[in-house]
């Protein structure tokens, strides 16, 4: 319902604004970083560039979650798993790129395998020295997992908290598995010490800027895609599935197919986000599978405002920006601030920050209308039940 009012209020101008802001900001950062010397006041440091890149990856991840949660009503508490899998696929490629520049100078094996006495590269590492293969896996692994998992779950009509909890179990199990050194993904230390990506050194500023741009493009692309989907009839069906699944079935929709479709797409988007994230932060480790990460991700979306797409993006960026700032200025107390923020947003802003704006938008409109029609006497009442 909000969706439609929202749409009527902003129409797709908002989408354009969104893209404008996104590309404007990235371009500005790029220019400031590349064209101004490091000591200039206008220079934007590599730190800011990577930070921004990280936020955009999170935003993409949040967007992916908003698609399934906001529009399809599937509260996935395991989306971090898809993100991490995408990240691992990228990490494996980056690991292979190191070649014999590792500490042991072994051209075939990553360092952690050398000192744990692995004699040869396990089969599932094969192919990751090719970028195209890794890129394929970035899409395929999360997508396939989501497909299989979703197929099982939606077919047997697992819904609500049951679904949420098994997604959580999924990511938890994956976390435990990846922690195991024997699985061959570097255990808890994960994959690090990457050197270069497609021949570009990851330590150079231009690569960083390039990654930032790539992330911005991915985010914009995903945004347009999601926007298109949610604006299409498919989007309306998906909303219908969210609100009254059995009704949708009786109207003739194979709701499990819709859910599966959206879930898989979302997982792929999350995987892409993870893949872009890894080269920018320089490490991928099983901690990313932690169920708490996935819960936090849900919180970003809620803070921004669910089922709006913008909301997810804004929420992810704001919360993470807040984290960056607060961990710096009040290291001992920032958890209070963060926790307080979550509580306050849910209690006072049921539709998130975006909701706050759009509601005020209504009010402004109402005020305008009142000015036109002096008869309108009363202001709207807040809430229904006491």
């Amino acid at each position, binding site marked *: 319902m909000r969706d439609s009012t929202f749409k009527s209020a902003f129409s797709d101008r908002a989408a354009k604004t969104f893209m404008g802001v996104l590309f404007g900001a990235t371009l500005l950062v790029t220019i400031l970083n590349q064209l101004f010397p490091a000591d200039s006041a206008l220079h934007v*440091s*590599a*730190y800011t560039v*990577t*930070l921004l890149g*990280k936020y955009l990856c999170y935003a993409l991840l949040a967007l992916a979650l908003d698609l399934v949660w906001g529009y399809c009503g599937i509260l996935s508490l395991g989306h971090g798993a898809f993100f991490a899998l995408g990240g691992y696929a990228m990490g494996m490629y980056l690991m292979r790129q*190191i070649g*014999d*520049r*590792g*500490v*042991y*100078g*072994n051209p075939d094996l990553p*360092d*952690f395998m*050398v*000192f*744990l*006495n692995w004699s040869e590269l396990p089969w599932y590492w094969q192919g990751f020295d090719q970028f195209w293969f890794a890129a394929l896996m970035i899409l395929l692994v999360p997508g396939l997992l989501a497909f299989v998992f979703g197929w099982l779950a939606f077919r047997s009509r697992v819904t609500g908290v049951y679904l949420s909890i098994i997604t959580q179990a999924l990511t938890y199990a994956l976390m*435990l598995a990846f*922690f*195991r*050194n024997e699985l061959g993904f*570097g*255990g*808890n*230390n*994960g994959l*690090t*010490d*990457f*050197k270069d990506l497609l021949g570009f050194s990851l*330590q150079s500023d231009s690569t960083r800027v390039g990654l930032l741009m790539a992330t911005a493009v991915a985010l914009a692309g995903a945004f347009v895609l999601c926007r298109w989907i949610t604006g299409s009839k498919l989007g309306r069906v998906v909303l219908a599935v969210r609100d009254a699944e059995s009704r949708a079935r009786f109207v003739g929709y194979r709701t499990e197919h819709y859910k599966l479709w959206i879930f898989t797409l979302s997982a792929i988007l999350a995987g892409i986000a993870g893949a872009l994230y890894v080269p920018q*932060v*320089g*490490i991928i*480790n099983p*901690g990313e599978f932690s169920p708490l990460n996935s819960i936090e991700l849900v919180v970003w979306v809620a803070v921004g405002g669910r089922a709006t797409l913008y909301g997810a993006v804004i929420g992810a960026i704001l919360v993470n920006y807040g*984290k*960056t700032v607060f*961990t*710096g200025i009040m*290291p*001992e107390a*920032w*958890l209070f601030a963060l926790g307080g923020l979550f509580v306050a947003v849910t209690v006072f802003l049921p539709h998130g920050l975006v909701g706050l704006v759009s509601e005020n938008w209504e009010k402004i409109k109402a005020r305008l209308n009142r000015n036109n029609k002096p008869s309108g006497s009363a202001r709207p009442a807040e809430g229904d039940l006491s």
Partner: protein
Amino acid sequence: ADTIKVGVLHSLSGTMAISESTLKDTVLMMIEEQNKKGGVMGKKLEPVVVDPASNWPLFAEKTRELITQENVDVIFGCWTSVSRKSVLPVVEELNGLLFYPVQYEGEESSKNVFYTGAAPNQQAIPAVDYLINDLEVERFVLAGTDYVYPRTTNKILEAYLKSKGVSEKDIMINYTPFGHSDWQSIVSEIKAFGSQGKKTAVVSTVNGDANVPFYKELGNQGVSAEDIPVVAFSVGEEELSGIDTGPLVGHLAAWNYFQSVYNDTNNAFIDQWHAYTGDDKRVTNDPMEATYIGFNMWVKAVEKAQSTDTDKVADAMIGIKTPNLTGGTAVMNKNHHLSKPVLIGEIQDDGQFAVVWETEGLVQGDAWSDFLPGSKDLISDWTAPTRCGNYNTKTNTCGGASAE
């Protein structure tokens, strides 16, 4: 600048806060103390504390922030290896300086990092020697949390034990997840393994939170130190302060420092710590000593180099000597690891350790283990002309990244 900025990179929230926040306080205490003495090179030290929140990528990000935004001259930080691994590329790229104060699995040596905690040969190997020689242990349970540090340490120990003639079937290896809390089956397995007639000991690389339930279960199932002693590498005074040590008396730990060591430097350090925290129940521990040594060495190196420039300080660091808290002198070696004594302590019912054994002299920290096939031939030497963290003595080349 008229101050020298010191970055403090320890988690103050999240799972690791429990261990790391103590080290943050230690660094702050050292800085305060140093400033009272007039600072370094006449400049005051200014701490910059950030919270990487037990989140590994955040460690890298915060490091970048510390170095590029805050322009710190040195960073004291990290606890877990994974956080160090995450930080490593960043300090190398930005040519920063990191002091890492915790025992770890080795297999690393970076130009920009000084390792003041123990390498495996400064903790695990002497401990096993003690078990074999003094306690006449013949069977070993290698119990650890399932991750890199225990895995590596156990790999090294396995090789070492075999070289000592311990047979395969007298070694039991067991891994548990992080934060494992239900130890019933494992303890009972250990009990069974230990009741086969041969003297048995447990070598524990169990990490952090899992230790409390582990020791509680040992106590309850009646595994006493006389029957099956447990020697741990991650259990210090701090960890014991959360356990009822009554039933644990006699279990062992191997460290380079114990609070109970009696000498004037240590007594002064403990008093200072109590005064700083305003709590005379607070304990000191090995990573604190490592921080203490690292900090003092850095101060000396800066004064010696008369600069805070990373390269100059790093060069000046090598060979620096500073008193450690156990009565001897710590030396920074060419491989950026320390020479320190190794002590074995038994847990006492007041939560302290009584030293029951000590190495003769100092043990030199070894970056590359001699007991792993991959690293047998590697050495680390950051002095000219080698200047290499992983120099292969067979091929006479400097491998990998550090070659540049």
